[in-house]
C-alpha cells in the first residue's frame, strides 16, 4: 500500500536535491527573500528565479491543483510527502501569493472554464500578482455593507468606489473585488465577485503607513473603471458565498502559517538570550512559566491542525473548525511576539540602528497585533463560532 508513496518520496527527494539551489535552502530573513511573482517581479538573485521556474514547470507551486490548469495534480498524501521533503532540506516556498492562498481555490470552485484557463496557469507560474478588494472604509467587520458599485452598462461593468486594507495593491497586477451589482437587493444578496486589471484606467492606490512603519496596505480608488462583462465570477448577485468560501481559505491559511514548524520557538530564543541555571532550567523562573504555557497552547494548536487535516482526509466535516483555527492561531502568534519582546527586554525596543536587523523585533511585534484584526477580527470569529457552531440565539 505505502510503496508507491515511498517511490514518490524517493523521486521527489532526488529531484529536490538536484533542483533546489543552495541559496533557496536558507532561512527567510527579509521581505526580499519571499518571491511574490507578478509582471514587475524583481528576483533577489538568479537562484530565486530558477527555483520558481523549476517548481512552476512541475506545478509544484500548487501541488494539489489539477494538472489541466498547470497545477501539480498530486494527491493529498503525495503533497504531504513533497512538503515533508521540502522541509527536510529547509527549502523555501518558491512562490507566495494571494492567487495561491485565496483566489485560486475560489476560481477552481466557482469560475467558468474560460476564467480558469485564463487565470489559474498564471497564478501557478507567478506571472500575475493578485490583490484582494474586500474591506472598505465603511465596511470592516460588517463587510457585507460594502458600497463599491458596479453598474451594468450593457457591454461592460462600470466600477466606482474605494477599498481599504488592500494588501500590496500598489504592486499587484489584478484585483479580485467585491462589488455591489444589485443596489436594491438586501445587503448579502446584491454582491458580485469581479476580476479586473489594476492597470485599467481609473484605478489608483495610496499606501497606508502602519504603526510598524511598514506600508503593506493601500487604500484603492476606482473612478469610472470599465470592466469586461465576462470578468464576473459565478452568479451575478451571489458573490457573497464566494467571498465567504475564500475567507474560509484565508482563515485556515493564516492559522496554518502560525503553526509552522522550522523556526526557533520563543523558549529556544529565550534560552540563548537569558541563559540557564545549573539544572538546565531557564534562569528566569517567571518567564519560564509563561513560555511553558505558551508552548502548551502552541503544541495543542499544531496537533489540532494535524487532526483537522486528518479528519478532512477521513471524510469528516471540518467546516466548523476554520474560525477556531484562525482565532487560536492569531492569538498564539500575538502571544509569541509579546513573549519575544519580554525575552529581548530593552533590545526589543530598538527601532533604528547600525545593525541590519535593528528594529525587526519591535516591528514584528507591532505587525502581529493585526493578526486578530485582518481576515475577520477575533470578535467576528467568536461571533461566527457562537452563531454557526453553537447555534446561540441572535440578539
Amino acid at each position, binding site marked *: 500500500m505505502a510503496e508507491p508513496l515511498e517511490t514518490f518520496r524517493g523521486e521527489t527527494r532526488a529531484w529536490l536535491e538536484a533542483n533546489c539551489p543552495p541559496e533557496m535552502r536558507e532561512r527567510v530573513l527579509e521581505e526580499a527573500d519571499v518571491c511574490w511573482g507578478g509582471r514587475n517581479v524583481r528576483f533577489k538573485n538568479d537562484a530565486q528565479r530558477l527555483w520558481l521556474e523549476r517548481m512552476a514547470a512541475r506545478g509544484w507551486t500548487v501541488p494539489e491543483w489539477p494538472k489541466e490548469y498547470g497545477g501539480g495534480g498530486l494527491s493529498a498524501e503525495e503533497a504531504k510527502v513533497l512538503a515533508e521533503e521540502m522541509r527536510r532540506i529547509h527549502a523555501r516556498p518558491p512562490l507566495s501569493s494571494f492567487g495561491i492562498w485565496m483566489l485560486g481555490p475560489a476560481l477552481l470552485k466557482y469560475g467558468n472554464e474560460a476564467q480558469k484557463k485564463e487565470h489559474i496557469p498564471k497564478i501557478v507560474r507567478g506571472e500575475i500578482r493578485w490583490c484582494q478588494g474586500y474591506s472598505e472604509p465603511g465596511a470592516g467587520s460588517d463587510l457585507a455593507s460594502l458600497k463599491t458599485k458596479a453598474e451594468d452598462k450593457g457591454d461592460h461593468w462600470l466600477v466606482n468606489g474605494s477599498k481599504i486594507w488592500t494588501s500590496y495593491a500598489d504592486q499587484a497586477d489584478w484585483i479580485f473585488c467585491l462589488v455591489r451589482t444589485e443596489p436594491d437587493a438586501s445587503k448579502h444578496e446584491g454582491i458580485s465577485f469581479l476580476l479586473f486589471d489594476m492597470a485599467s484606467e481609473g484605478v489608483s492606490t495610496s499606501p497606508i503607513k502602519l504603526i510598524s512603519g511598514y506600508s503593506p496596505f493601500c487604500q484603492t480608488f476606482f473612478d469610472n473603471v470599465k470592466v469586461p462583462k465576462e470578468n464576473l465570477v459565478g452568479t451575478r448577485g451571489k458573490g457573497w458565498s464566494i467571498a465567504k468560501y475564500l475567507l474560509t481559505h484565508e482563515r485556515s491559511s493564516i492559522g496554518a502559517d502560525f503553526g509552522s514548524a522550522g523556526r526557533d520557538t520563543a523558549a529556544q530564543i529565550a534560552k540563548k538570550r537569558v541563559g*540557564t541555571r545549573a539544572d538546565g532550567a531557564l534562569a528566569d523562573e517567571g518567564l519560564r512559566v509563561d513560555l511553558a504555557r505558551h*508552548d502548551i497552547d502552541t503544541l495543542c494548536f499544531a496537533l489540532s491542525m*494535524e487532526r483537522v487535516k486528518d479528519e478532512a482526509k477521513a471524510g469528516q466535516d471540518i467546516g466548523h473548525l476554520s474560525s477556531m483555527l484562525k482565532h487560536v492561531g492569531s492569538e498564539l502568534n500575538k502571544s509569541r511576539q509579546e513573549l519575544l519582546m519580554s525575552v529581548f527586554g530593552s533590545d526589543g525596543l530598538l527601532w533604528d540602528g547600525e545593525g541590519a536587523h535593528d528594529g525587526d523585533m519591535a516591528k514584528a511585534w507591532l505587525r502581529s497585533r493585526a493578526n486578530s484584526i485582518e481576515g475577520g477580527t477575533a470578535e467576528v470569529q467568536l461571533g461566527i463560532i457562537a452563531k454557526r457552531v453553537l447555534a446561540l440565539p441572535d440578539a
Partner: protein
Amino acid sequence: MALVLNDEQAMIREAADGFFASEAPVSELRRLRDAGDTTGFSRDLWKKMAEMGFAGVLVPEAHGGSGLGLVAANLIQEAVGRNLSLSPFLSTAVLGATALAGASEDQQAALLPKLAAGDLLLALASDEASRHAPHLIRTRAEAAGNGFRITGTKTFVLDGHVADRLIVAARTSGEDGDRDGITLFLVDPKSAGVAVKRASMVDSRNAADIRFDGVQVDGADVIGAVGEGAAILDRVLDAGRTCLAAEMVGVSAQSFSMTVGYLKEREQFGRKIGSFQALQHRAAQLYCEIELAKSATLKAAQALDAGDKDAPLYASLAKAKAGAVARLATNEGVQMHGGIGMTDEFDIGFFMKRARAAETSFGDLSFHGDRLARMLGY
C-alpha cells in the same frame, strides 16, 4: 499515524457512550453519594464493564483481556467523564494493568485474567506528598528474610480502600527524591502491618491514606527489577494522566453542552441570555479550548500505544491542557448557570468538583508545565 479514530475505535466510542449513559449516569453518582456508600461504586456495574471488555482493555488477549490499547481506554474514560460514572476503571484497568505490563510472566498469569474478568481490584500507592511529586518516595523497603520489609505512609491512594492488591512504590536505595532506587511491590492489604484509612473526597470518590508498618513481602512480589521501578511507575503515571485528560475532555464537553443548552433556554431582560455577546464570546472561546484539549489527548494516547519516545511529553501536554480546560469549562458552567449553578440539586456542580479532583490527580497545570519545559530543554 493519522490523528483520527479508526473504525474499531469509533465503534468502541459509540459502545462506551451508550453504556455509561444508560448504566451509570450522573443520577447514579448522586444516589451513591446520598446513600453514603462506602465502596464508592457499584460492583454490579464493574462486572458489566468486565463483560463489555472494558476492565481488560489494556490486558493482552493471551491473558483474557481485549488488548485494545490506550486510545480505546481513553474513549471509555471520556464517556466516564461525560457521565461522571463511578467505577474502579482508572485504578484497576488503567493504572493496575499498566503496572502489571512490567510484571513477570508468573505474576501476569496469576493476576491479569482475574483483572480482566472484574474479579481483582488494584490500587496504586505511590504519592506521599499532597502536591504530586512522583519520585519523592520516603517509604522504605529493607531487605529482610527472603524478601523486604516496607515502612512508610502513602496518601491519596485512589480506590485503596477496596483494592485486593496494592501496587506500592517504595525506596530500596538512594535519597528521598531520587529517580533511581525505587522499587514496585505487590502488597496484599490484609497483610500484617497495613492500615487503610478511607476518606471520601470532594468529587464523591474514595481515596485512602495507607500506613505500612514493617510489612513483610516476598521477593516474588517485586514488579520488574529492584531499584528500577521508576521506569514502570512513570509509564503507569503517564497512562493514568492521559486517561485523566480524556476524562476531563468528557467532563468539559458535557459541562459545556449543558451550559450552552442553558444559554439557549434561560431568559432575562426579556431575551435568551445566549443572545448576549458577553456570554457568546466566552462560550465560543471555551469551544476552541476544548478542541485543543481533544487533539492533545488523542495524540498522547496514540503516542503511548506506539511506544513513541515523545509519549511522556504528550502525556504532560494532554494532562496540562485538559486540566486547565476542564477547570475553565466547569467554572464557566457554574457561573453561566448563575444561582442555580450553586445548588446541590443541579448537576453542574458535580462536574466542577470532578474537574478539580481529576486535575489534582497525578499533576496539575503547574506540575506538567514544568515537566514539559524540562523535556523541551528549558
